[in-house]
């Protein structure tokens, strides 16, 4: 195994937005007008078209923005706009002279790359600028993953368990003692998860005590254990605990020098480029929360043709992206085999003939260590290929939800586009 270089500097925090498409729509706006307000108008239009929100998920639907939009939303949107503007400025994709904004040569180039080669190529182009400007955040991410979990190929877990998940009914949590029982149960569960997935034994008692201390200090938890806590504070207590543990995992166990927010943004950007996978939907029947794992390695040299040289660093180390070729017949066959295997695994639990394609996708991506984007390409190829040993059926299942019960504004799991149609369920037979 090749040695992994240790980093002794801290990468900078990113600007506060997830989608790299934002930079594209800004550049597009600038190509249409030099006036900041007009650019902002274009920005809002395209933001709606691309379904971009302020979260890491795309929106289901959104009313087109108009002047009647709530003031609060407008403030949010303008904040995002300014963040994107600053970042584009950092990378010298635009220049500001007086109050006019225009594209630089790099900006024009970037625009062309997006429009001719697609968003993934655009993201890869941006990668270089992000890496340079912010002191190698992506290299830092990848190296730290492998350092933390050498045994399991860089897998990181961020467990999140609500009280219900651990078998505590909301109604049964009344007193301080009840909540402490839940937190104890949470601690035990996380220790198990760490042991199983990270191969380490870590005692979280001290941390748990610290959390309880904090909750007591902030008055969220009554000092007297038999006293009832304020039930209106329940959600705050849960959020506090969740954030506490996420931060502990990130900075305590994994020793990341990022804040939670920065980590999230860098990780989801890395996902858009294809360097790393982060997801909260891996279909593990027992582990709930987020997981992340690298899809690339940092090495001085790599001979395997399954890897693409992505970036050369000044210290002689290189970033190689795992990108097996679709045109390689061996890879096609192993993809098909794996797809079938994972389909059967998911089908075994679901007990239906058609199963959730996105669950199969998560399993295949983890097994093969490929990006979601590459999976889509392999799937499309296999779907059309004749003479494969398996026959793939892809359809879309539109769930109908009554308006009162629906609380989803965001599509958390995007369907796969094949032949211009969205698909989210799959069935496989032997040909």
């Amino acid at each position, binding site marked *: 195994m090749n040695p992994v270089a240790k980093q002794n500097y801290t990468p900078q925090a990113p600007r506060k937005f997830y989608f790299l498409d934002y930079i594209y729509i800004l550049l597009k706006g600038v190509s249409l007008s030099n006036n900041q307000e007009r650019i902002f108008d274009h920005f809002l239009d395209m933001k709606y078209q691309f379904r971009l929100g302020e979260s890491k998920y795309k929106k289901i639907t959104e009313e087109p923005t108009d002047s009647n939009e709530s003031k609060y939303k407008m403030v949010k949107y303008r904040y995002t706009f300014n963040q994107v503007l600053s970042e584009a400025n950092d990378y010298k994709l635009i220049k500001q002279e007086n109050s006019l904004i225009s594209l630089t040569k790099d900006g024009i180039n970037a625009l062309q790359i997006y429009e001719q080669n697609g968003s993934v190529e655009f993201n890869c182009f941006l990668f270089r600028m992000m890496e340079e400007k912010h002191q190698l955040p992506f290299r830092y991410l990848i190296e730290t993953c492998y350092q933390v979990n050498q045994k399991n190929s860089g897998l990181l877990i961020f467990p999140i368990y609500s009280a219900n998940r651990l*078998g505590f009914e*909301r109604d049964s949590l009344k007193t301080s003692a009840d909540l402490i029982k839940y937190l104890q149960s949470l601690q035990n569960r996380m220790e198990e998860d760490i042991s199983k997935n990270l191969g380490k034994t870590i005692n979280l008692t001290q941390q748990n005590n610290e959390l309880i201390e904090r909750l007591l200090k902030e008055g969220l938890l009554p000092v007297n254990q038999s006293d009832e806590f304020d039930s209106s504070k329940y959600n705050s207590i849960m959020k506090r605990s969740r954030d506490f543990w996420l931060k502990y995992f990130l900075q305590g166990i994994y020793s990341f020098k990022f804040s939670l927010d920065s980590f999230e943004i860098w990780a989801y950007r890395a996902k858009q480029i294809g360097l790393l996978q982060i997801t909260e939907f891996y279909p*593990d029947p027992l582990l709930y929360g987020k997981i992340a794992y690298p899809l*690339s390695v940092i090495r001085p040299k790599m001979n395997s043709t399954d890897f693409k040289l992505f970036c050369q660093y000044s210290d002689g180390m290189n970033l190689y992206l795992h990108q097996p070729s679709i045109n390689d017949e061996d890879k096609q066959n192993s993809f098909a085999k794996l797809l079938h295997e994972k389909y059967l695994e998911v089908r075994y639990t679901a007990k239906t003939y058609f199963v959730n394609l996105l669950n199969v996708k998560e399993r295949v991506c983890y097994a093969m*260590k490929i990006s979601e984007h590459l999976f889509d390409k392999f799937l499309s190829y296999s779907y059309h290929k004749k003479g494969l040993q398996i*026959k793939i059926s892809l359809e879309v299942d539109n769930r109908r939800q*009554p308006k009162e019960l629906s609380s989803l504004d965001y599509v958390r799991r995007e369907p796969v586009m094949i032949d211009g149609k969205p698909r989210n369920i799959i069935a496989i037979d032997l040909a």
Partner: protein
Amino acid sequence: MTIDKYAKRPKAEIAPQEGKYEIYNLQENPFPSQPFVNPESNDQRINGKIYETSIRKQEYKTIEENFLSVPQSDPNHLRLGYVMDVSYIGRGNGKTAFLTNLLRKINKDFSLSISNELNKCFAVIVAPEPSGKTKTFDDLVDLITDRIFESNIIDDCLVSLRLEAIFELYENFSAEKHFQDELEIKKKLNSPEWYKENNLDYGSINQKIISNSNLQSLPTNFPIYGSSTLFANISSEKDFVNYFIGLKRGKPRSEFLFSHLVNFFLAAGFNGAYIFVDDFAYIPDFQSERQKRDFAVELRTALFDGLSTNARMGFYNFIFVLHAGVPALIQPAWEQAGLEHRSPIFYRGNARHIIKFEKIQYEDALSLIQKYLQSYRISNVSNDDFFPFSKEAIERIAELNDLNASKILKMAYEILERAVEQNVREIDVDFVTSNDENHFAEQNNASGISEATTKDLMKEI
């Protein structure tokens, strides 16, 4: 002598216990614990007797308009149709329950009332083996014939034939005088003693039967002829079964089902039959492309353009029950065999021969639950009352189970059991939600990420 035995009363008094569902105004838990339909069961929760017709009203209407009420004499009547599940929710959408009820309705009076006496048809439901044993057309022929035997329609036909012959030969014969009910008709007409006692010559009765024009082309060892020589030997369904077992697989059996039996049914007054193939997918699931093609060709021959009696008149009307993935499975075979022309599976818009089974709606889920509740109510309540469930709770159950009828019923059963255990007064949305989370945690059959094999990129060189 001690008279304690008679005079004394026991010390322990039995106090009648309140049924545990009584607080909910229910005699028992009205929901099936394992909601797949088993028509043989005595439990009305499982055998399809509890059935809310409003849910699949449209689907029933389509079948009635395009199949059941169309006269068999119409040369263009549909011979092959599909019940197509377009919901993608897998099993549990209510197809088998629907078919079971349809079957009951048809066989109640052999579709005489449904078709305004234009048709007299019986119906059977066939289900291929999930193990994949039903792979070829010959296997299907065996399966159908077995089901026909099991349904006792042969016996019914023999009864019809004999009755008709008796009426023709003996003018003064009064049915009311001899038979009290259906059971008695069958019993007496199958008993040689009864004929003797009532001075009816079985020999000439049988002669009358076999002189029917429809029975002229039958082979000489066909069971209907069996009894003309020996007085004591009145042919019964058993003879048909034995005869069939003795036939070789392939052409002889196919001919039996599609020609000889058809002639026999025609003689008995039937002019058609509906064969519902439930879970049709179990056939192509296990077939290679070649086998699918052969199957499709044989099906086409038997139904449309072969030389059998059935092909010439379209006696049997087949309806295949398909789930959403099946059309893709069989389309190339159907096309190559020419079945796509006769009875296309891929059809834009609304086809007369395709009965679409969509997901049920939320209103249907409410009707479904209400039907079960009402079947076990102690005292009647209005249709709006879902006690102990709240309306929202039922909607949540429906949502959690993807509007899958089968799963909705199963969850309703479990939630009610839990409510009884915990002495819960009313089942509301919160109770349902907390139930679901625990339930989900117990389903850990799939491997977790810690056990999943993955490519270790660090090991690559």
